[in-house]
């Protein structure tokens, strides 16, 4: 078993232990199937953010060099019709998240700023933190970045809630 697998197994055990509570914002954090620890899904309900009414799904892909290299985390925006969950919102307007691909621009998830002591839970919490701390100066969604810059709260909230199921 590689070091990456050992570490991921340990994280899996921790997250699936009922005595160990994850943050209230993280609904679930599990591998897609038990045979592959390198492919995870997280469902979040970011209660302390302006996205609090929504449930969002994230895909987490890991490589054999984890935890020396960061996980690749994306919001799932293009789920096939069969796999679609009615509870989940697949559109997330956020200035550091690509609206089409769900790609997230977050410095600590880039290889130069990553640290091996961070876990998948920390990474997800960092993304939840990013939801309320938008950085309009390095946008992936330029239109939404403009709204953030103008601080048009009514428009921001209306757009977010427009997509939420």
């Amino acid at each position, binding site marked *: 078993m590689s*070091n990456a697998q*050992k*570490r991921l197994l*340990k*994280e899996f055990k921790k997250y699936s232990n009922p005595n160990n509570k994850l943050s209230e914002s993280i609904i679930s954090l599990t591998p897609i199937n038990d045979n592959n620890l390198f492919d995870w899904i997280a469902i979040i309900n970011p209660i302390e953010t302006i996205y609090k009414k929504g449930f969002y799904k994230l895909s987490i892909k890991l490589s054999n060099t984890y*935890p*020396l290299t960061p996980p690749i985390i994306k919001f799932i925006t293009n789920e096939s019709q069969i796999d679609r969950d009615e509870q989940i919102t697949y559109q997330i307007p956020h200035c550091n998240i690509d609206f089409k691909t769900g790609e997230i621009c977050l410095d600590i998830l880039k290889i130069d700023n990553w*640290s*091996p*002591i961070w*876990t998948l839970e920390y990474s997800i919490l960092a993304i939840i933190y990013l939801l309320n701390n938008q950085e309009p100066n390095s946008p992936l969604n330029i239109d939404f970045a403009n709204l953030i810059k103008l601080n048009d709260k009514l428009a921001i909230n209306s757009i977010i809630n427009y997509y939420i199921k």
Partner: protein
Amino acid sequence: MPTYEEEHGLNSTNNNTEGERPNRLTVQQALNNFINTPTDSRNNLSNSINNSINGINNVDFNLLNQMMNSMNTILVDKSNTNNGVSNEFIDRLERVNVKQLKNDDTCPICTNEYKDDSYPLVVELPCNSKHRFDLECIVPWLKINKTCPLCRIDVTIKKELPVLVDSEEEDEDWEMYG
């Protein structure tokens, strides 16, 4: 009466044409040489070219992908090696005595308890005596980064000088007693 060429210190046109002839000959000779080279060696050349072209056609995509991947990892490794610390630095890392470790102390990288291993190899980084890691876990990180995973301080900045001073003092002591 001197000719135009003589007046201007030039060679006669005759000489010029003679001078050209050898040139033409050498080109012709080179051509002849190429044409007359043994057909074997020329065939060898074209064969080897054909082989390499066929080789490319026969490579299956899995192999090609593997090669691309390994190339990528090599490139990543190479680009990263410059950022890491030297092997000497790793060798000089402070070892932590097993007696100093508590039963529930864990390595922040692998999250395993040090005492799970009956002979744990634990080191501390120069930034802070509490920044301890399994040697096995921290070495791959330090080979690609100079920073402490816990506090991001460049671990190579300090330490170097005091170590040198220590060794000098030791040398002086030896001289005094010698």
